[in-house]
């Protein structure tokens, strides 16, 4: 017990603190969590920093990307915005994913919120917060695209 205390992993200690687990909800969480993790850790910020030219492929023509109050609608405009932003390095510190309401409850669309630090160019470092809505591709329910994203620099 005392070892656990120093294990820096509080999740083991208070597991029963918020009541019973809803098995249906757990199933949904198990479906969407790996998607959110892959999106945040492998796709979006990785591509943004290292392979930005390809990033626009995650959007569709009615997608919207809102960059600090400026709206860019459609692949073309989003591509232009992405080209305008200098080279970046993101460090994600938090992210979280919720299922969105919709017809297909077992395979829902995703609401993702991420925050952390970003450096543009050589030394312009800011805190950021970004919200994503990932929607299923109408032709393939296992492929998701960015329906919208909205970023704000918080410093």
């Amino acid at each position: 017990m005392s070892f656990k205390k120093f294990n820096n992993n509080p999740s083991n200690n208070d597991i029963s603190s918020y009541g019973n687990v809803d098995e249906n909800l757990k199933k949904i969480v198990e479906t969407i969590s790996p998607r959110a993790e892959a999106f945040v850790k492998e796709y979006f910020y990785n591509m943004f920093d290292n392979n930005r030219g390809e990033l626009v492929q995650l959007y569709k023509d009615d997608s919207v990307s809102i960059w600090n109050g400026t709206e860019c609608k459609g692949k073309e405009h989003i591509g232009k915005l992405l080209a305008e932003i200098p080279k970046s390095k993101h460090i994600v510190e938090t992210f979280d994913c919720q299922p969105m309401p919709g017809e297909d409850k077992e395979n829902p669309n995703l609401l993702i919120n991420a925050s952390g630090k970003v450096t543009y160019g050589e030394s312009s470092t800011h805190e950021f917060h970004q919200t994503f809505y990932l929607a299923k591709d109408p032709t393939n329910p296992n492929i998701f695209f960015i329906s919208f994203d909205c970023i704000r620099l918080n410093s």
Partner: protein
Amino acid sequence: MSGNKKRGVRIVRGGGGGGGRPRGGGGGARQAATRNRFQVVTNRNTSDSMSDEYSRICISGLPKTVDRNDLMEYLKLKSFKPGINFKGYEFRNGNLFLGVENTEDIPSLIGLSGIRYGGVKVSISQEDKNSVRQNRQNKPTQRGQIRTFTNNTDKISNTKQLKSIEDHVNSSYVDNANQEVVDFSYLHSTKDINFNDIKTFRQIFRVISEKCLKANTVSFSHNNITTLAPFRFMIKYSLDHVINFNFDSNKISDINELDCLSDLTLRELVFTNNPICQIPNYRMEVARKFPDLKFLDGKEIGPEDFPPSPIPPLRPNYCDSPDRQQFAYKFLERFFKIFDGTREDIIKAYTDESKFSMTYVADSGSLPMRGSNKVYQRSNRNFKKPMDAVKKTQLLFSGYDNIYNFFKLYPKTQHALSSSIIDSFLAPGTQLLTVIIHGHFLEPTFNIKRSFDRTFVLAPAPPGSDAAKGGWEAIVLNEQLNVRPYLRLPRVEPVVSQPSSAEQEAIINEFSAYTKLKPEFAKECLNMSGWDKNKALETFSNLKANNQIPQDYLIQ
């Protein structure tokens, strides 16, 4: 005392956040106090019976049963002085007398008078001085005499100084909307007040918070000020209405002193005739520290005061339709009013399918399992941490009951909506309104400011639903909250598309008719808001709510 271990921890914490003690001034008294503190350590085993060596505070109006230790901890927390050492106690006539080791701590304890404890208001005063002095004179030891001497001078000059500050304010200030300035200029030389002493500012803040409710500007010019450290404590005096500070002709030479102002809401600062004005890039440095500052040294802060940025400009609140934006603002206003209150009525804004979760970024100096940090830490659904599916499910609060139960655990808050950034738009191809707000809130219990990002996915409340009956126009489908250490939001630049003068006139007339502002002030308000009518209306509503619009600005 049983709380010694605890106390040690708190001192470290207090020292970390306190940002240093004021320099110079009051050195003699402070040294004596420090020395006494060490002497007392060797003397720790004295009983809890009242020792008449110490000045005492009298706490009255207490509930019938009081846990003295809990009360003392509470007072330390509330006064932001974890190091206060209480020495002995006595219950007499329903009042609790507590000895205070260090007389310097007494004014801040008295400053807490009127605070609520155990559901009732308690008053705190200093015990009658004469009886204390009499007791002391009977004390034969040399140590007692020295202490009596230093403490009495200290205390007398303290009371005298407070009186002279009160007299000054009474004679120079009338609390009405036309007098916005409280002027403490030259008091260093005319009244011999030391403005590098935290005590002085505690008294000043207290007097302003009691007597100058309508003031928005305070002048401290010509007072020999070298440090701004006392302003770190200003936040606990509820002086949010004071937004302009004049430090003209003082001796502030270190730009880092300005960090002591970082918790305050600021509109204008004046540092003319201070050594800091000479440092290279002075204006840029100050503008960078205070993104919401509008004027520095009487000159508006403009693009030239900022280093060139490599990124596209940051714009104010985004919306895809003004109607939806109004809908979103209205929702947020109601939501946070209830959230900052008892929270009971919030439950109707959620359905049995609603989802809520939060993430949390701890302050590097905060202790994770203390106070409100504990609630945030335990509910932190951060996928960056290793977390199994059970935990992820438990921390996804689903349905109004679970969400409301969590809000009951959530610390009490005061949100500052007027200084936030709000983006609102429909998710493409849906009827779901997304509202994302970035801002800060205060936890009044601990006087901690935190920043937050909160995303809402809203749908119109179905007619006849519980939500609609409860006065909610929208229901919350999804809500995600990110809580992080307080940070000022960056400066945003409105899109500069100045309307033509004919268009301007039409807008002024419309705005003036709606708000009853005289045209010249309507124009000023619109100008400040980049000719965005919604923004101007928001500014106007905020000023009006705070009674900051003088009668003569209005069409009579």
